[in-house]
């Protein structure tokens, strides 16, 4: 089979001779053996490759959207077809990083609009043009808090997504930050009494998630009252923000989250995009890229990257973060989705998600399942299951369900609990079927 390398044997010999090497193996002898000896099979022709990949792809199990009842950070929502069409335009897909404003007005304007929408959604004053994902956005927020007040104690609610917490700890290595866990009370929300005891003038930041990892809605007003002189960081789920009072109205300093629910399909858990919003007074401590609106010499509106002195290509050792890029295409998907849905559309998605999740919870209770927490929830909730549930989860998967998540996968302390989720894509029928399937296995 011809391997599509344009050089002839003779040309390869001539080139090797010119640089004084005997063979291709010699040319690569500085590359470690572990990398060179990959034991890859021989190449195939195109026709055979397509055939092989097709047969592998046929092993994929595609779960119908309405039978997905897992959330925990990644959510199935309806994505209008036009989102993909718009975001696939080559002007966006192949856009180079927009350093040259004069040739990147389209990209820059789209990102500027994205920032504006994130500000409206979170109730904050400024937003950057996105981070990698929700977890890295939170980690960057914690580091930013440390830059603002130079303190080291980070109060982290136990109801923050465990993987987000792990990411924060990884990022914080080398900064000497000390993470203190704030427990959860019986309602499933962050324990305010415990927070009062822990919060003092040494506290760098307090982090809560809204709605939290267990789906419960937190009392942000109370957190702000307790943590007066501390950087208040909220990890928010963006769809819920059109129903709940935004963190900005409770005096949050930084609001971050994952933009996946805003028009991005689950994609096996990534790529997603992180949003990051803060107050004007903190803007110079904010990581990432910011797009600003300005006027040219003739008074016409134009868009440019601004405040770039915070970024590493200006003064590396003084950069606020080693991220001076953004997830431009994913942020664009968010912007297209939000502009298509509009405030009313987003509210409807939120309302339907809320209604479906509450219907699901009621049905489970009718069948004798018990909810773990009493607090108000948005579109996720925790309920009790038996020890055998993680095993049964696999059976339910074979029946075509992505059933509620066995929480012990995240933490052994949560043995015997499952985290259920519903969004606007679930139907009354699919919820009823899920409840019946859960009940069958529980007997």
């Amino acid at each position: 089979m011809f391997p599509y390398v344009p050089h002839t044997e003779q040309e390869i010999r001539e080139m090797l001779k010119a640089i004084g090497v005997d063979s291709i193996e010699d040319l690569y002898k500085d590359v470690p053996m572990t990398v060179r000896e990959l034991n890859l099979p021989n190449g195939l022709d195109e026709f055979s490759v397509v055939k092989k990949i097709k047969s592998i792809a046929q092993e994929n199990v595609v779960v119908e959207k309405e039978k997905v009842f897992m959330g925990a950070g990644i959510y199935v929502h309806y994505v209008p077809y036009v989102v993909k069409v718009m975001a696939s335009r080559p002007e966006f897909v192949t856009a180079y990083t927009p350093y040259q404003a004069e040739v990147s007005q389209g990209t820059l304007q789209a990102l500027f609009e994205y920032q504006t929408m994130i500000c409206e959604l979170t109730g904050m004053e400024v937003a950057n043009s996105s981070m990698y994902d929700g977890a890295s956005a939170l980690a960057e927020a914690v580091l930013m808090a440390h830059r603002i007040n130079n303190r080291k104690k980070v109060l982290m609610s136990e109801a923050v997504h465990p993987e987000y917490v792990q990411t924060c700890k990884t990022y914080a290595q080398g900064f000497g930050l000390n993470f203190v866990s704030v427990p959860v009370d019986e309602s499933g929300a962050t324990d305010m009494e415990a927070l009062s005891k822990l919060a003092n003038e040494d506290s760098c930041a307090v982090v809560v998630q809204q709605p939290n990892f267990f789906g419960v809605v937190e009392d942000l007003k109370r957190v702000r009252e307790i943590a007066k002189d501390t950087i208040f960081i909220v990890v928010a789920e963006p769809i819920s923000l059109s129903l709940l009072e935004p963190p900005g109205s409770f005096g949050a300093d930084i609001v971050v989250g994952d933009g996946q629910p805003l028009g991005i399909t689950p994609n096996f858990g990534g790529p997603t995009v992180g949003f990051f919003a803060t107050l004007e007074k903190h803007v110079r401590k904010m990581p990432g890229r910011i797009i600003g609106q300005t006027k040219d010499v003739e008074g016409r509106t134009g868009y440019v990257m601004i405040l770039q002195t915070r970024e590493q290509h200006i003064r590396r050792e003084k950069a606020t973060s080693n991220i001076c890029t953004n997830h431009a295409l994913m942020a664009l998907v968010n912007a297209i989705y939000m502009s298509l849905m509009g405030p009313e559309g987003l509210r409807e998605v939120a309302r339907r998600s809320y209604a479906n999740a509450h219907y699901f919870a009621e049905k489970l209770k009718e069948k004798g399942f018990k909810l773990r927490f009493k607090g108000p929830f948005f579109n996720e909730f925790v309920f009790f299951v038996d020890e055998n549930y993680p095993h049964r989860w696999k059976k339910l998967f074979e029946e075509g369900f992505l059933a509620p998540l066995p929480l012990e996968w995240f933490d052994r302390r949560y043995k015997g609990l499952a985290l259920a989720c519903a969004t606007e894509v679930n139907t009354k029928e699919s919820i009823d079927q899920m409840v019946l399937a859960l009940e069958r296995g529980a007997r």
Partner: protein
Amino acid sequence: MKKFAKTHEWVEVEGNLAVVGISNHAQEKLGDVVYVDLPQVGKIVKKGEAFMSVESVKAASDIYAPVSGKIVEVNEKLSNQPELINKDAEGEGWLVKIEMSDPAELSNLLDEESYRRFCEEES
């Protein structure tokens, strides 16, 4: 009487305090100043170390301490009016006041005439 550092800061002594700013020559080189990253009052600085920065439209420049000591006052006006540095770098646009720990360090600085010659040579 002002004295100058080769890194383009000026010092004017008031008792045991040193008022510090950047020279008129430096602000011309910087262009429009848009932000001044003022240090904390109480910060201890060592002669020659970068202790704050001034941002212009194009770049951020470190400011080096011309003398050692403790920062006892910063020019708060610069928070809202960074352009004072362009308007009056060697007067209203002062940056900080340093309580000197070693006034003898002043003798290593240039007088106005030598500084002017130094700038000419530099360019």
